[in-house]
């Protein structure tokens, strides 16, 4: 697998590159800002780009903007945005325009190389990757009358994995059940939560995140 890494802080960039090389992933280019990143993606046509959310010049959301641009111009290139903020709004902004082949992970998460490599694979398979910390915070949010209370333990587990961006197949593998069982769970969850998105669509991650974020069920 070939990737481009963009991070303006050399220390972290080199750390990530070392981790990737350790796992046998081919880092074809490194960039320290959005312009360099876009240039390298154009030149090398990698499988994925790993992008720091905060880059020069304003150190705010340059990474998100670059990610969206890559997704728009190079549909085959997956983008994994790394951030130090547990902020669902950033993750959702990423999903809004291009709901597949994008990921939002906390930087400390990729310390576990397996997770990093897994995320890159999932992007290549056309899935979405949302950091489990964000998902667990959204799922675990205090609600006055919790609609999630209607879900069974297993259904809640499946809901979390859907929110993390896993496909039914991946969820099945993770939970050691058949894909058909997962499908049934997902259908049931969408029914119970009255989500009107097609449970099999690319947009289901965004729909679930938005649902969790709205904090509904208060009245």
């Amino acid at each position, binding site marked *: 697998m070939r990737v481009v890494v963009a991070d303006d*802080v050399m220390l*972290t960039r080199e750390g990530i590159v070392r981790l990737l090389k350790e796992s046998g992933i081919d880092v074809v280019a490194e960039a320290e800002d959005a312009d360099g990143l876009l240039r390298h993606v154009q030149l090398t046509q990698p499988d994925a780009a790993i992008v720091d959310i905060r880059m020069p010049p304003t150190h*705010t959301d340059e990474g998100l903007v670059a990610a969206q641009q890559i997704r728009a111009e190079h549909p085959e290139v997956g983008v994994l945005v790394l951030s*130090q903020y547990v902020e669902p*709004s*950033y993750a959702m902004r990423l999903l809004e325009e291009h709901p597949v082949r994008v990921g939002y992970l906390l930087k400390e998460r990729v310390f576990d190389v397996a997770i990093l490599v897994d995320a890159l694979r999932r992007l290549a398979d056309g899935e979405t990757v949302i950091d489990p910390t964000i998902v667990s915070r959204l799922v675990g949010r205090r*609600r006055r009358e919790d609609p999630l209370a209607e879900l069974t333990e297993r259904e809640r587990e499946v809901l979390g994995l859907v929110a993390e961006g896993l496909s039914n197949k991946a969820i099945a593998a993770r939970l050691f059940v058949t894909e058909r069982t997962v499908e049934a769970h997902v259908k049931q969850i969408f029914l119970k939560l009255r989500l009107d998105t097609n449970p099999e669509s690319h947009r289901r991650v965004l729909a679930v995140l938005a649902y969790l974020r709205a904090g509904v069920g208060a009245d």
Partner: protein
Amino acid sequence: MAAAGSAARLRFAGIAVLVLTLICAIASILAVPRSTEPFTTYAGATYAHASTAAHAADLAAGLGLLSAGLLGWVEPRTRRLGLLTLLAGIAWFGPDWEGWDGGSPFLRSLGAVVTPFFLALLFHLVLALPLGRLRSWPVRVVVIAAYGVAAFVSLGRALFRDPFLDPYCWRNCLYNSFLVHADPGVARTLDQIWLRSSLAIGLLLVVMGAWRLLTASGPARRVLLPPLVPGVLAGGAASAYAVALLRTPLEDPRSAGFSSIFLALSLSVAVLALGLARGVLETRRTRAAVSRLAGELGEAPPPGTLRDALAAAVGDPALEVAYWLPEAQRFVDGRGYRTESPVPGHGRAVTPIVRDGRPVAFVVHDAALLEGPALEREIGSAARLAVENEQLQAEALAQLEDLRASRARIVETGDAERRRLERDLHDGAQQRLLALSYDLRVARAGAEAGGDQGNATLLASAGDEAQAALGELRELAHGIYPAILAEAGLAPALATLAEEAPLPVELGEVPPERYGTPIETAAYLTVAEAIADAAGRRATFVSVDVARENEQLVVQVRDDGAAGASALLNIADRVGALGGSLEVRPHSVRAVIPCE
């Protein structure tokens, strides 16, 4: 002494004007014949002979001007305009005196002398609206030229025109008491000069009047409209009259063309007189309102009263009052906020209000609506004291405003410092710790590959420690300053706050637009502190509503916790520094933050 002398002169002039007007009015009523009287061109005739309508219109126009003029003369602010109107009224009756069948030859000759001045006076009157002054030198030059031509023609005719020798004569074909040398050729030339000049004056009146109307400010236009529109129409009728005479030298009041022109002119002049009278009454009301201010201002007025009262009294909503603060070396308004230096221009005039030889306030007003000296005169001494009080109050308020601004700066400096700290943590310690954890991971993989199980375990636990430290550091940085607030705004930051809260938080729709950092920070911290306080009082539920109401951001947090809500003093300070207010009740916190 000089003032006393001028007052006496004024009284004398007043009596003189009154007597003159009465004589003129009586003479004119006598002179104007009933339409039933026979129309005899050799003895004497006027338009009033032609029809009942012309008779009524003639009297309405002339007496209307005389009455409006007298009304204007009595009101000090419109004295100049009143005098002009009176003179125009007298000149209006010129033709009637001239055609007075049975009137004294001298008076009939005088009528002929006076007649041409009507147009010049009308011209002057309309262009001098609404206060009786001509505003620019080109207008002054044109008006003087109109008087010049009228005087030249009038004098020339008096000296050289023998009506008996004039083939087109009709009003008075017998008398000219001032004749020195009869010369029909000169008289004819003068007639031609006058017709062309009156055509030009009429047209100029239409153009300049219309231009004045189009370029006047809103409040000035409101005042100008009633007299200016009929004034312009009268100018049009005067030029039509000149054109008709140029084409048909023999004037016939009974012909459809001439009589309709006369009717149009008389009606316009009558409506003009009404408009002028209305203006005088309006001015009198304004003056009375300004005089009344004294009483109203005396009773401990709230800040800004003088401005509002003056604006209402003068009918100029854009009126401003500025106070000079000598110590702070700047101008402020009645509420103590800094204002621009009052500068005249663009139709605005600046009038200082002086007390004890020292200007205490400057009034910026529409130059067309109010004359500075009149305002200065009419603001009585009691009002002056009130104005000075308001100046002192403005000064105190300005100092308070300075204090508030300095508080806002302190809060802002603190916030900037926190933001910087958060950035330093993010870009410094957090990055180093990240790199360290990555390195530990690589080292552990190496140790595992080399079969060094002891070191691998050690490195694994070091890696976990680094991860834990990273998590704590992230929380710390977020606590110091939530980066999402600065980068994405209030709505996403509050959403995150609601998700992290230790109790259910229902967040209403937050307006998505951005406000300044201080406003967003104050709103965010209001919500954060109110949630923390509610959690401390074992609330089971908090609702947060943020709305923009006019120029204010209103943040409302309600909870169902136990009694004893904390006063949230630091938040009150912060909101207060932005000119807002914080209201803490047993189960609700409400912050109102200005955000224009």
